[in-house]
């Protein structure tokens, strides 16, 4: 393990430019800087949330870190070694240490493959043995993510959205990664299911000690899961800090604007609800005692 001073992932001055072609032979090619000089660190066992509005470059940053997209410039260090220039086998090995969970579980899971095949695929691709055999391995993973292990032969379409997202999480866990990049992983879920999946993600981190790079636009969700928060706008990080600092004493004007815009259930209503809830529970207890 690396010591406390050394982060698990250190990305320095990442830049990603896309060519925007004007069309035709003489069309001018413009450069679009989707990620502009972004530096970030993810420490072992923590969750760094990367937040921002659409077009802020947060998803592109995630893909750069996962080495799914080529960097224009910048350095990435993972567990102390540089990974920004990896190719071939070494790149494959890196990609198994860093796993991604995407927004839409159905489109990121092959509909024609059973859960067992999906979950063991990362190991099979890397020609690694499946510990304890595919069936038992899948069942154990399914249990860990809160799925019925008897459903290991089912297909993604037979699961609800929340369950399908759990399959995506199980697949990520299969290779025992050190970093999981969750790209809007709970954004498409209904609020009750979303809460369950957030809890699952937190529980798994407590058990395994891996880190999350958690990409999200929903600040309320981020508050529930982040250790630290980086706020992105127009390709740049405008503010990084510990979660409570960013939410309670935001320094950057953009962060303040973002936080102010989030709709809230009135705090006095929440307080009243908690009082009423306590009184109700008290009443029920008294009735039970009688």
């Amino acid at each position: 393990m690396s010591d406390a001073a050394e982060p698990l992932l250190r990305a320095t001055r990442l830049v990603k430019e896309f060519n925007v072609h004007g069309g035709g032979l003489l069309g001018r090619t413009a450069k679009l800087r989707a990620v502009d000089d972004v530096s970030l660190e993810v420490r072992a066992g923590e969750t760094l949330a990367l937040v921002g509005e659409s077009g802020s470059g947060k998803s592109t940053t995630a893909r750069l870190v996962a080495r799914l997209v080529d960097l224009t410039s910048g350095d990435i260090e993972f567990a102390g070694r540089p990974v920004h220039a990896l190719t071939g086998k070494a790149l494959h090995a890196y990609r198994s240490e860093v796993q991604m969970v995407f927004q839409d579980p159905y489109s990121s899971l092959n509909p024609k493959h059973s859960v067992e095949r999906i979950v063991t695929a990362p190991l099979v691709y890397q020609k690694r043995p499946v510990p304890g055999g595919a069936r038992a391995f899948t069942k154990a993973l399914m249990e860990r993510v809160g799925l019925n292990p008897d459903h290991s032969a089912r297909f993604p379409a037979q699961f609800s959205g929340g369950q399908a997202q759990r399959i995506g999480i199980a697949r990520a866990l299969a290779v025992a990664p050190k970093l999981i990049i969750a790209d809007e992983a709970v954004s498409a879920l209904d609020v009750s299911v979303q809460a369950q999946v957030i809890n699952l993600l937190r529980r798994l981190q407590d058990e395994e000690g891996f880190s999350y790079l958690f990409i999200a636009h929903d600040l309320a969700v981020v508050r529930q899961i982040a250790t630290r928060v980086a706020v992105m706008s127009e390709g740049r990080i405008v503010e990084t800090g510990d979660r409570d600092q960013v939410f309670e004493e935001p320094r950057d004007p953009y962060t303040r604007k973002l936080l102010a815009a989030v709709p809230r259930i009135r705090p006095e209503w929440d307080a009243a609800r908690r009082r009423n809830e306590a009184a109700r529970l008290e009443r029920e207890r008294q009735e039970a005692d009688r």
Partner: protein
Amino acid sequence: MTASHEDERPLLRVRGLTVAFPTAAGATEVVKSLDFDLARGGALGIVGESGSGKSMTSLAIMGLLPKGAERTGSIEFDGAELTALKEREMQAVRGDRIAMVFQDPLSSLNPYYTVGTQIAEAYRSHRTGVTRRQARRVAIEAMERVHIRDAARRVDHYPHQFSGGMRQRVMIAMTLSMEPDLIIADEPTTALDVTVQAQILDLLAEIRRDTGAGLILITHDLAVVSEVADHLVVMREGDLVEQGTAERVFCDPREPYTRMLLDAVPRIDDEIGLLKTTTAEEDR
């Protein structure tokens, strides 16, 4: 204007509203015997998760249900029974007296026509003898009312030339040109960024204040609805779970499902709520 005793009658009175899709195995009811009222100038929030039937409810009121859907029950709007109207009569109500704002403003606008054409279209089809010039004037005024700057020039632009938030303003401008009595907004801010969402919600509030139009806000987002609605209907799988004033439902939810929903909503200001659902973390 309306007499005072009429003002006490609700603007919209829905009784036993049921929407069913006939299937081989019998009818599937996606909205089950709904009862609710909307006061004049009131704001009703219909909240539910996916599959709750909240969007079908709004389409049922508009008479725009998909093919094959069967609607039963009563929808009384300003004293008139909408379910008894012929299609031609319903056309006169749609757009003119009840207007609708949809979730995805880009796909809800026709890419082939300028926004001005699309805003003026409703006006021209509901009012007879409107010249092109008058209709254009109305479109520009409607765009100015939703705070689109440089409306006189932007009126000739196409939907793809606007940002997401501006497109939703165009959609709202479209409803405004007719001065409707009721605006139904179906997830109007779900596709938008949070800062833009705040602007659109402000705009809807401003329009209600200025025109006195009633509003039905369909949403999955309890925080949004708490900022907009004075009454709340909570739906789940086609059933009406609970209704009441927004304050009552938020402060003292009576049904377990409502309590669960309120517990599950992540709060930006602290970590409460979420932990509770840990125990409920099994498959549904």
